[in-house]
């Protein structure tokens, strides 16, 4: 079983602060995805990173895939209350024609106004 460790588990910050959270594994993944989940809803995909060292930006969110494709980070610049939610990373492993996702336990982010 491939395990994904996310850290920190909980984070509470003031609006306007910057933050970085992490997703680490000892396994190599074909790609890594970040989802955000709001209370009472299902996870929604934010980004998929595929190439080792890849950096993707989504407005104030910057995602990086590690060179060895085992880990990833998410940096949020000038956090806003709308960024509050559960951030899940998921590693994709392709076996034959199938691709399965292994999810981390998530990072609960609270941004105070």
């Amino acid at each position, binding site marked *: 079983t491939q395990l994904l460790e996310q850290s920190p588990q909980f984070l509470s910050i003031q609006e306007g602060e910057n933050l970085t959270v992490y997703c680490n594994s000892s396994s190599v993944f*074909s790609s890594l995805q970040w989802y955000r989940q709001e209370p009472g809803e*299902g996870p929604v*995909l934010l980004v998929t990173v595929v190439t080792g060292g890849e950096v993707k930006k989504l407005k104030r969110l910057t995602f990086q895939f590690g060179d060895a494709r085992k880990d990833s980070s998410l940096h949020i610049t000038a956090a806003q209350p709308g960024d509050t939610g559960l951030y899940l990373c998921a590693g994709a492993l392709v076996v034959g024609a199938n691709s399965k996702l292994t*999810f*981390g336990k998530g990072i609960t982010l609270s941004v105070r106004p």
Partner: protein
Amino acid sequence: NAGVTQTPKFRVLKTGQSMTLLCAQDMNHEYMYWYRQDPGMGLRLIHYSVGEGTTAKGEVPDGYNVSRLKKQNFLLGLESAAPSQTSVYFCASRGLAEETQYFGPGTRLLVL
């Protein structure tokens, strides 16, 4: 497009009762998945299907059965519910040539 829908949204069962959760997708996706989400445990895969008429076990399949009689529907059954099956259940689907999974809004199940 409605995307992925789940029925019901919330259900309370007594221990030993049975029920079926329905997942429907209108994106013509080949792959469908059932997950459960528990505090501190993240999302865990129960069963999945790679196409109509096929199903496979995921990480935590015990106590659950599934069926994929139609491409657009994926049913999750609990034959004899147990309190340990109290959870939020999410269905997801994925197209053949993509890795993005699209999730439904979830079904909250409480087993007393």
